[in-house]
């Protein structure tokens, strides 16, 4: 008597949720994978709420309000904020100087021997080498470059500017090359076939159609560079990050909160400026 009833209820369950078993399987698999991750990252969330960590945290956070607003402190923050912007701008300017020639070398559209179908052996090798150089430059994070340069040139903005310049050379070079290669190659190729130089072919064939895209990407990267230049201060490259690091080490909540607010404002302003600029271009 009971067996058809159970059958029906089973059938009913499968109608209600046909993917039930599959879902259970994936959840179980996720749990099995999650366990070693929790162990490896020493994820013990309850330590956050233990007395010895809660007390200094609450004290630090209570210190956040009110933010420190003394005139001389604000003046110092303004100076360091300008430094952060200047480091980003100088870094991007240097990156442009390196990235433009490197992307011109790697762009396949500008290859004369490539017109015949396949590239010459020598030029293909040069392209590969430059491409690998760009990959290495952008694979090492800017913070690591900064750590290395701080060892060589000492503390200060020079290390930060160099770090930004190297990483962004890699990024800009790669993306410039992609933009150039994705644009319409007909004009460039006919110019090259008729015997113009490669630079002329670039200026008259490639640049007019991709100038807006190139500029807009550069401005976007400048915005990213401002964020990373603030972070570089944490390894001693000057600017807002370094002051923030110092204040945090002294558990000075009110100073940290002022600088965090200034930093968020700066990021917001850079975001606005860059999107205004890019709207103006399109």
């Amino acid at each position: 008597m009971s067996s058809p009833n159970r059958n029906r209820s089973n059938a009913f369950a499968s109608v209600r949720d046909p993917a039930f078993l599959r879902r259970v399987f994936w959840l179980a698999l996720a749990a099995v994978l999650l366990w070693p991750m929790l162990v490896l990252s020493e994820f013990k969330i309850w330590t956050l709420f233990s007395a010895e960590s809660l007390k200094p945290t609450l004290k630090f956070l209570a210190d956040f309000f009110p933010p420190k607003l003394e005139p001389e402190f604000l003046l110092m923050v303004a100076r360091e904020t300008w430094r952060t912007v200047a480091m980003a701008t100088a870094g991007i300017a240097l990156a442009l100087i390196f990235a433009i020639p490197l992307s011109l070398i790697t762009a396949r559209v500008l290859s004369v021997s490539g017109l015949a179908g396949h590239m010459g052996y020598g030029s293909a090798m040069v392209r590969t080498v430059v491409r690998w150089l760009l990959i290495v430059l952008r694979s090492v994070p800017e913070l690591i470059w900064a750590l290395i340069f701080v060892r060589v040139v000492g503390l200060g903005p020079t290390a930060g500017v160099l770090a930004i310049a190297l990483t962004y050379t890699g990024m800009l070079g790669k993306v410039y090359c992609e933009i150039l290669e994705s644009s319409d190659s007909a004009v460039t190729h006919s110019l090259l076939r008729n015997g113009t130089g490669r630079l002329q072919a670039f200026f008259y064939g490639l640049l007019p159609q991709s100038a807006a895209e190139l500029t807009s990407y550069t401005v976007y990267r400048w915005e990213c560079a401002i964020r990373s230049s603030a972070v570089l201060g944490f390894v001693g490259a000057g600017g807002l990050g370094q002051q923030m690091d110092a204040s945090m080490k002294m558990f000075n909540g009110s100073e940290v909160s002022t600088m965090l607010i200034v930093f968020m404002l700066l990021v917001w302003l850079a975001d606005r400026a860059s999107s205004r600029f890019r709207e103006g271009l399109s």
Partner: protein
Amino acid sequence: MKAIPDIACKPLPAQLPSQLPPPLWDARCKACWYVVFIALLTIASFWSLDLQWGKFLSLDAIQKMGRFVAELLTPNFETPFLNKLWWATLETLAMSALGTLLAVVLGLLLALPASHSGAVRTITRAALNALRSIPELIWATLLLIAAGLGPMAGTLALALHTSGVLGRLFAEAIENSEGSPAMALRTSGVSELKIFFYATLPQIMPQLISYTLYRWENNIRAAAVLGVVGAGGLGAMLSFHMSLFQMAETSSVLLAMLALVVLVDALSYWIRKALG
């Protein structure tokens, strides 16, 4: 018979109107002002920073750099050290994966009110912007006070920053999703939670997965670096060996970082291709 296109029949104007190229400077041209502004910004930047090019390009610095590079070219491949490196790499991977997972949960929780309307939306959006605008590294230094040295601070830092990014993207995905399935369920009296799970979530799932993968890729790079401020993983090893000037070990750590990044890039490229 096919009509000849109109354009071929049009006679050329007898004389093209002569037009001078635009002048180099025009007060009404917005782009000119932008260019001037950028030039001034760049000049002011270089001028105001006390950049020590002399020091950087001096013989001493070049020699230092050369020695540095030479030392970096001899990585340490001894077994006990490699063992340690392997665990640090796994720790970095775990940090990034767990941080991303937490961010997905937190991001979805915040995306629901952020895709609503009214004051709730404004407040949650502001919170998401705040979470997003502070980089992982700054979150990590802030969290070190609460969570102490170690990978947990790094994981939480990644989770906080990424939940800001993902929350905003998810909110946009929810807002752009088709509303009629949800409406159909709502008119037949289904609860809001079920509507989300059976009408909205299946629609945004592909976007959700692709955004998450993309952020995970980013987070692995970030996780490798976070250790520099004391938040565990490969970065902690790097800053430790670098501060002791043990260049062979530093070089191995750098190689491990590079390998990790390249591997993840290849993996996510492959997954993206497999997903179409």
